[in-house]
């Protein structure tokens, strides 16, 4: 490439790079920096550098003893990390399985297929806060339709406070997310299924391969790239999950995710620097999981 062509390319890229630096690079850098300061929400300008203090620090009691404090030894934080990982693993797994099943159905020829495809997308089209509120009502212990149904059908002996009870809160959150995101998964996988040429299935029929074997040995390997990409899209979303948890189960350590932990510290507990440090860790955790996944799945993202 000639020097002038390179210069022209840079020139064309400059506006985009500048915008990215402004809207993504700068906030990220600021957040990381705040994580190393004692900034508070009311006094961002007076923030002073305290090094790794937010992450790990020795708090002396004055009598020679003391304790370690900071994010890295914060049980609440690690609980939030664990919650997030469980949430991500379960929801993405179930959404993938269900999404694949729905995609296989939608990939078959049947009348009104276009209408059904559009209808399947409805849960995905509803704003998350709206669907979370809707589910909150449906799961309500006194007025919710779920308890009402359960009681009338004799499945429940007493109404359950689905979102408040520690045993069921996480399950409720995951159910709502699965309900909402499965259509998205189904659509991404459907796109992958439609890339598979039809005549390969005819060749398999001539070869005498039964439908189940055809699925495992032909459909799945050929749809795998699309499925792996869909999984990473969903996993990235799930690792950052905030709105469903925040609306459905506020202030609940059973369901608190990393994003909720960060938001609480940043804006509710007036621990801006601590929240910033958590935010930085969140970024690192997601980045590492993504890299590990891409490597493990040998994804080609070109």
């Amino acid at each position, binding site marked *: 490439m000639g020097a002038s062509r390179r210069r022209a390319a840079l020139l064309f890229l400059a506006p985009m790079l500048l915008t990215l630096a402004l809207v993504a690079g700068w906030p990220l850098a600021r957040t990381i920096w705040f994580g190393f300061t004692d900034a508070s929400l009311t006094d961002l300008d007076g923030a002073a550098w305290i090094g790794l203090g937010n992450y790990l620090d020795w708090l002396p009691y004055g009598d020679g003893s003391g304790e370690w404090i900071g994010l890295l030894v914060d049980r609440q934080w690690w609980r939030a990390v664990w919650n997030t990982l469980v949430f991500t693993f379960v929801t993405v797994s179930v959404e993938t399985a269900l999404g694949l099943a729905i995609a296989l159905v939608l990939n078959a020829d049947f009348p009104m297929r276009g209408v059904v495809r559009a209808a399947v997308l409805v849960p995905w089209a509803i704003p998350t806060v709206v669907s979370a509120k809707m589910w909150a009502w449906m799961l309500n212990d006194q007025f919710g339709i779920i308890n009402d149904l359960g009681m009338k059908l004799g499945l429940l002996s007493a109404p359950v406070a689905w979102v408040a009870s520690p045993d069921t809160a996480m399950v409720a959150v995951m159910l709502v997310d699965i309900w909402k995101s499965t259509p998205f998964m189904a659509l991404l996988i459907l796109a992958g299924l439609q890339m598979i040429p039809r005549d390969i299935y005819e060749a*398999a029929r001539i070869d005498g391969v*039964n439908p189940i074997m055809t699925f495992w040995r032909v459909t799945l390997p050929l749809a795998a790239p699309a499925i792996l990409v869909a999984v990473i899209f969903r996993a990235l979303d799930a690792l950052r999950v905030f709105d469903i948890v925040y609306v459905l189960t506020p202030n609940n350590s059973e369901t608190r995710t990393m994003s909720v932990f960060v938001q609480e510290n940043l804006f509710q507990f007036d621990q801006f620097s601590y929240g910033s440090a958590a935010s930085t860790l969140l970024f690192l955790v997601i980045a590492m999981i993504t890299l590990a996944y891409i490597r493990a799945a040998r994804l080609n993202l070109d």
Partner: protein
Amino acid sequence: MAQLTLKNIRKSFGKAEVIHGIDLEITKGELVVFVGPSGCGKSTLLRLIAGLEEITAGEMLFDGRSVNNLPPKERGIAMVFQSYALYPHMSVFDNMAFGLKLAGSGREAVRERIMEAARLLELESMLDRKPRELSGGQRQRVAIGRAIVRNPRVFLFDEPLSNLDAALRGQMRVEIAKLHERMTDTTMIYVTHDQVEAMTLADRIVVLRDGQVEQVGTPMELYLRPATRFVAEFIGSPAMNIVPATVTDEGKVLPRGAAAPVALGASLNGTSLGLGVRPEDLTIAQDGAPSLFEGRITLVEHLGETQLVHLDVGNDAPLIVKLPRTAAAERGHMLRVSAPRETLHLFDDTGRAVRAA
């Protein structure tokens, strides 16, 4: 290894019937080519034989046994697709082995059969490659190999060469012909729209038109004695000239634009006849000898070995004459041509051939 009998086979998609009752007998070990323009139903008919489509009405017998309700794998067929339809994620070896392994053949037996097919098709050095690493011709050989290892009773080809370039097509055509010679017991059915493939490969050609059989015969039968005007124009390249003709009072045929009426000895009636003559049957008339047509040359196409001369004899379409490259033909000059009487074809107003009595 199978004798195929098609009895009044019909196929409808929804309300539209595309195959209108086909009767056909294909003998064991024969290579039959289904040929016709696109939309004539030749591929659909092949898919009915394969079992990929359901037969709407009629009966299909393999060796006297009805296969109407048998799935493809129980019919003992193998098929080569136009698009090859190889499994893209499997190696060449696995593409050929997939069906066999699942059918429960032993590992060693599978290996042996694949190695034999690979030797036959010169694929031995590429057994570990994926289809995307192969050229079009190699892919088609793999597709043929996958069909061979199934040891089919009936071998089906659905326009197998139409995705290849001209040179490769000629080469693969020869390979398929050799394959047919080697697999003497295997019945082969080959679908194409290319009449050259049909002429060179077929033991018998079935010409299809609008879901019906137009004519069945050996290549030379179809070439020399086309039953209809459609077959006459479809078989042979360039296509046969068909000139509108009338019958004179003496019962002779007078092609429009002809120098003189021709006595063909057929009992004729009707006024809108068509006289057919192939470009290669026309020759320059000797001075003084009678000619069939006379006209001005409007165009000369040099093909190297021959030249195609377009002659304006006063009809809508020019008369095409195929002459040796040494013949003197120049645009704007007059040319007188004639043809032996036995090479002339006559078609009545329904398009049926009228034979000399």
